[in-house]
């Protein structure tokens, strides 16, 4: 029987690694066998199974964060070929090789590709991105939301706190106190809700204090980077309008 030799396809990775939060990052190159329909997560799993660099030397398995694997949890965000995005929806067939993986350095790096997104969750706590309905008695049903409003508010609710907008923003850095686009859009979402609206001023005042909305420089990278297509710059402009109005109301005592 004639022997057929099929060229074994492989995938090349250059991964920026870091052992400890305060240690120096370094790069390692990997070459792993190709399988159809792979994504960056399944490729990282392959490296985890056989942590050998392309020069044949063994190394420690690469660490990463992931959960849902369907782009709704935001945990696997990393910088892939220079752009922040989710590793689960980064399909190998659509990526240029070698595939460069880096952590999102806007956030503290825990290890390799794992980052700490605490600042985002703290921002949501600061702006009270929830609807307070707890009480000592049944408050009854709240007011209804207009359908047209519900439709755009639903888009805002798709935010998964993944951090891609903060990573792409030139004003989210250690010299700037900007809260970031995600939390501002959530203020718009909860202020749009008929019950959430009752705490509107409180949320606006938080954004009008230090480390609020003031740091936005209108680079509009966030809206281009958002994997969920959330109209972040519209949210920021709408909240600019609301905070401006609130500022004048405060001054005039209206």
């Amino acid at each position, binding site marked *: 029987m004639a022997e057929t030799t099929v060229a074994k396809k492989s995938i090349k990775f250059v991964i920026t690694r870091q052992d400890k939060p305060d240690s120096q990052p370094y790069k390692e190159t990997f070459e792993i066998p190709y399988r159809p329909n792979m994504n960056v997560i399944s490729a990282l799993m392959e490296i985890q199974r056989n942590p050998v660099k392309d020069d044949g030397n063994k190394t420690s398995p690469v660490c990463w964060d992931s959960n849902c694997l369907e782009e709704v949890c935001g945990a696997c965000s990393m910088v892939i070929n*220079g*752009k922040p995005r989710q590793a689960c929806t980064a399909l190998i067939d659509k990526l240029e090789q070698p595939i460069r993986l880096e952590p999102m350095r806007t956030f503290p790096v825990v290890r390799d590709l794992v980052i700490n997104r605490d600042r985002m969750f703290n921002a949501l706590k600061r702006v009270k991105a929830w609807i307070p309905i707890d009480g000592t008695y049944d408050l009854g049903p709240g007011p209804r939301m207009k359908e047209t409003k519900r439709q755009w508010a639903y888009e805002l609710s798709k935010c998964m706190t993944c951090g891609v907008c903060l990573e*792409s923003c*030139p*004003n989210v*850095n250690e*010299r*700037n*106190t900007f809260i970031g686009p995600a939390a501002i859009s959530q203020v718009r979402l909860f202020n749009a809700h008929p019950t959430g609206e009752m705490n509107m001023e409180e949320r606006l005042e938080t*954004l*009008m*204090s*230090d480390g*609020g*909305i*003031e*740091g*936005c*420089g*209108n*680079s*509009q*990278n966030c809206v*281009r*980077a958002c994997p969920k297509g959330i*109209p972040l*710059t*519209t949210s*920021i*402009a*709408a*909240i*600019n*309008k*609301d*905070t*401006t*109005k609130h*500022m004048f109301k405060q001054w005039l005592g209206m």
Partner: protein
Amino acid sequence: MKGNSYLSRKLHSLLGVIPLSLFIITHALTNFSAVEGGSERFKAAVGFINGLPLVNVLELFGIFIPLIFHGVYGLYIAYQSNLNTGQFSYGRNWAFALQRISGVITFIFVFWHVYQTRFQVAIGGITHDQLGMTMHNIATNPLFFTLYVIGVLASTFHFANGMWAFLVSWGITVSPRAQRVSSYIWMVVFVLVSAMFLMSLSAFRGDEFKEAAAALDAIRTIV
């Protein structure tokens, strides 16, 4: 910066429009008199501005104090920003980066330009009537002319793009469409105002400004 940074940013943004944007338009119009009517019209325009009542008060509170706050706080804002156009080369991100770069250039240019003109008047080196001559000397120096063209383009871009950003930051243009239309309008304003400044700058190269200078020198030597 101490105090509430929201209010500082809002003040910085407002001063960019009132009075600084109004000032830059007034300045472009005054200069343009040199294109329309040459040396005499320019002298008359300068004379009109300096004949305004309380001109020193207007200058201090309408120009110098707002300019210093906007400039110094603006440098702080520029310091707080990263430039990531290499990674995200979108038009608006370029405008964001250029807004900061042009701001720094404008800061230096305005400082130098005020030194060459208003400051010389203040220390008595020249009179208001000799400003045309001063500009003639600047505009005919190839190095100064090039630096002035760069300074004028930077200032005008900073003004036009700053107006776009002001409308967003105060929540006037909210929807993507409004912001897009606004960006077209301010781009046209940038081209028109730059053209006015550059035409004036080349008008100052004309011989009549030199002759005026020579005549004045002649009078001086006689006196």
